């Protein structure tokens, strides 16, 4: 049995200890907002937070996730109140197909907690998630808007 804490809720699931967290979330806990993209830690579609830090959940065995507070896209909003990154994504119409955006939003949310006023260059270097639709321009606009709304400049 593996014990996990996901979005503040404890879970016990009967899976192999080396199962990637991604599949425990998707196939065993029904949290399908976290997406499978490449399976080799490149694309970032599977990004979640472990104790607030972004991790590629396809690369993290569940046995190494048991001590962390895991947060997924389903747990980013506080009830009906969307996280500021989700709000900015809505306002700036960022997603196209949307498949990468759960991971993108989780990566950006964690990054903005770490660096509250990133430049575009810092954003580009930190956010290595891949979007096949090419929404990078809208992502930068949305992030700029978040920074400006909070009265900060890079």
């Amino acid at each position: 049995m593996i014990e996990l804490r996901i979005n503040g809720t404890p879970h016990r699931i009967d899976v192999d200890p080396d199962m990637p967290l991604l599949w425990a979330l998707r196939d065993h806990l029904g949290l399908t907002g976290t997406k499978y993209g490449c399976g080799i830690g490149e694309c970032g579609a599977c990004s979640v937070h472990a104790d607030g830090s972004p991790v590629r959940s396809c690369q993290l065995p569940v046995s190494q996730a048991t001590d962390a507070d895991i947060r997924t896209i389903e747990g980013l909003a506080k009830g009906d109140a969307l996280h500021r990154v989700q709000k900015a994504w809505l306002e700036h119409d960022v997603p196209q197909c949307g498949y990468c955006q759960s991971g993108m939003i989780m990566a950006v949310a964690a990054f903005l907690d770490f660096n509250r006023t990133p430049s575009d260059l810092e954003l580009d270097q930190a956010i290595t998630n891949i979007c096949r639709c090419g929404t990078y321009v809208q992502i930068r606009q949305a992030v700029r808007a978040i920074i400006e709304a909070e009265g900060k400049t890079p």
Partner: protein
Amino acid sequence: MTLSRRRFLVDGLAVAGGFALGFPAGAAEGRETAPSPEVTAWVVIHPDDRVVIRIARSEMGQGTLTGLAQLVAEELECDWDKVGTEFPTPGANLARNKVWGSMFTAGSHGIRDSHLYVRQGGAAARMMLVEAAAWNWNVPAAECEVEKGVIRHGASGKTTTYGKVAAAAARLTPPDKDAIRLKDPKDWTIAGKPMNRLDTRGKVDGSLVYGIDLRLPGMMVATIASCPVKGGTLKSFDASAIAGSKGVRHVLAVDGVAVAVVADDF
């Protein structure tokens, strides 16, 4: 346009305005007992004025859903802020004699091939809604104006909303497509304008269900490895290497070129 929807043609009730029109007795505003909110196959209007536009093409990120909704809403003259969408199923389309036409979605055909008849579907709904209001007020439909889902009869000062007359409008026979005059695109205020997409919420909170997210009863998952060289064939594989792995059901050769592992989950 063939709209195979239910029709209530009542003997002795008449024809007005350019298209056949029949009311059941007493079908006045507010007196509906079993309202059908579907005005045309493309347009559903709820009593609280929420508009649901049916989208018969897939949305794969190109914005087809929102673009088609804009085209319908433009002719419907509804309040864009009250517009939502829903997808009819292929089964429903078949059961209703392809009332939504082709559902093919590829190569930019989604909007290009259907913009005319979805606009006609929106315009037909608008005409029926106005006709229903005019009938209720006992005035000619031609004297009524519509803006953002509010119907107004200038001479009498009467107003009503789409939501209030939708159930009555739903009982009308849709106008013949020859009676439908579409707006000149230069007068468009919704279609062709850069509106935010209607389906973004589910993409930012993880709730949108993609194909890979579906779980059906008894469903298993197969992952496939094939020869990395084009034309390469399968020589051998060692299924015993993963025998006893949790959840693994089968290890199969596929057409002599690939190996599939079938398991309960990924």
